[in-house]
């Protein structure tokens, strides 16, 4: 089921959380809402779920206007950053909650819960209480609970934000694989650009309550629509009038047109990559990343004067 967000605005007192945001999420796609904290991305997710109401604008789910529909009737699965586990219920009862509320037959509920316990790899934890699970397990339970009533839309609010780095990257891959199996239209909120790049079909970059750009990870990286997108999705730094990514700079030993003279002040070897830090004539810092092979071939040294030639630099009009 597709999700269409149409001109949604939301204010909390004087604070503008969302300002005229429109976004399309295709049926079956995995969309990331990416932005810094306080950008309004979680508010947008909550408005899609019906947990928050928009001041203006509309939400269409599967082509039907859902703006005034209560969250209970939206058939949306929601996963919370801090799990929102029902701690007085076992894992089984947590997962079964949405089905019991819908008064499904007992046998059917038991079967569906078993299926989901398998899907989230908690087969042996059904009788435990949430307090007896690790953070990653609790979040998998949260996911199974949200998926149990077979929602047409799955919404995740920083689902891995409270977990440590290793568990986070495991769960992130696992979510991608799960999505390939379940095919439910999924929107998840994150402030982690790597997470967004790694698993989503579409990324919507949100900043100060406005949608900066929406597109595939590749589109955003290769053709950022604004300075904010370029610096938030991947690294970027100013070089002259332009912005350029650290990988997109050639270091030449002779001056050429468009190259900036700079001196190497520091060289760091990062395994397969080499990081070269330079100062230009004005003292501005510049970082260049290249493969070890290229670095070894050229044989750069500290104190060397080189000419930095940007390959894919971008100039953005001053944003007001």
């Amino acid at each position, binding site marked *: 089921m597709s999700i269409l967000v149409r001109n949604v605005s939301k204010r909390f007192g004087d604070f503008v959380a969302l300002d005229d945001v429109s976004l399309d999420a295709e049926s079956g796609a995995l969309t990331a809402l990416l932005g810094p904290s306080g950008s309004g991305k979680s508010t947008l997710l909550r408005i899609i*779920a*019906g*947990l928050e109401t928009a001041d203006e604008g509309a939400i269409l789910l599967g082509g039907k206007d859902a703006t005034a529909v*209560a*969250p*209970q*009737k*939206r*058939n*949306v*699965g*929601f996963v*919370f950053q*801090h799990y*929102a586990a*029902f*701690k*007085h219920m076992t894992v089984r009862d947590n997962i079964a*909650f*949405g089905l019991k*509320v*819908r008064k499904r037959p007992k046998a059917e509920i038991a079967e569906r819960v078993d299926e989901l316990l398998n899907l989230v790899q908690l087969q042996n934890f059904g009788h435990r*209480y*949430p*307090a007896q699970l690790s953070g990653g397990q609790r979040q998998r339970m949260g996911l199974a*609970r*949200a998926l*149990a*009533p077979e929602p047409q839309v799955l919404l995740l609010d920083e689902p891995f934000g409270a977990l440590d780095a290793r568990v986070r990257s495991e769960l992130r891959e696992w979510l991608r694989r799960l999505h390939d199996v379940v095919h439910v239209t999924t929107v998840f909120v994150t402030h982690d650009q790597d997470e967004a790049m790694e698993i989503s079909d579409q990324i919507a970059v949100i900043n100060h309550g406005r949608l900066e750009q929406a597109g595939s990870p590749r589109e955003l990286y290769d053709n950022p629509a604004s300075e904010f997108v370029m610096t938030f999705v991947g690294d970027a730094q100013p070089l002259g009038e332009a912005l350029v990514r650290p990988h997109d700079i050639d270091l030449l030993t002779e001056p050429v047109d468009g190259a900036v003279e700079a001196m190497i002040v520091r060289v760091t070897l990062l395994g397969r990559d080499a990081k070269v830090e330079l100062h230009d004539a004005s003292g501005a810092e510049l970082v260049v990343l290249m493969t070890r092979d290229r670095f070894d071939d050229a044989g750069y040294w500290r104190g060397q004067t080189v000419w930095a030639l940007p390959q894919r630099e971008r100039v953005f009009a001053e944003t007001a």
Partner: protein
Amino acid sequence: MVMVGLPLAALMWEATSEGTQSFRDAVSSPEAVAALKLTLGASLAVAVLNAVLGTITAWVLVRDDFRGKTVVNAIIDLPFALPTIVAGLTLLALYGPTSPVGIDVAFSRTSIVLALMFVTLPFVVRTVQPVLQELDPELEEAAHSLGASTWTTFRRIVLPNILPGILSGVALAFAKAVGEFGSLVIITGNIPFETEVSSVHIYGRIESGDSAGAAAVAVVLLAISFATLVSIGVIRHFATRHDR
């Protein structure tokens, strides 16, 4: 131990000073039994009423925003601070023969319930309030997004989480109600077999020089209070069993 234990030991000593037979007689005299039945009945009724009223009050104070909320929040504690005899006078003025609101329930059993509700309401409010404050609103949002109505969400998610708080508040209110004296002695009229509660009955025994009889009934009240305290402990134990 000395502070608490010594007076209790003295009470037990006094209660049995004239032998176990007179202890049994004092406790099972028709007037003592009637007073005890009335005390327990009224206290139970008050506990149940306050479970509902106190929970609603706590809910409004935690979840709603309205003008004068801080004032209302402060007033809740008034029965704690007010000398109970003053509470009794206040209630007599409000619900007595000269009632400005036209309700005269003085010297009736209704007055016992009203007085006890007044002095014990804060026990429930003050135990439920922190539990509600700690209850993550995301739990309710999760339930809603899973299709649960507001009522189902309250019954299946909110209530199980705040029930231990309600129960221990109710138990405290019950224990307080069983021993209440000051607020009742004026408004109830202390009619034996009618509106005389156990604490007033004890006072009456002492007035008529029967200190052993007074102590005997007091021991019964003490046992009830003790059982109530134990039940609070049991409730707390069970309430937190999934958090450990």
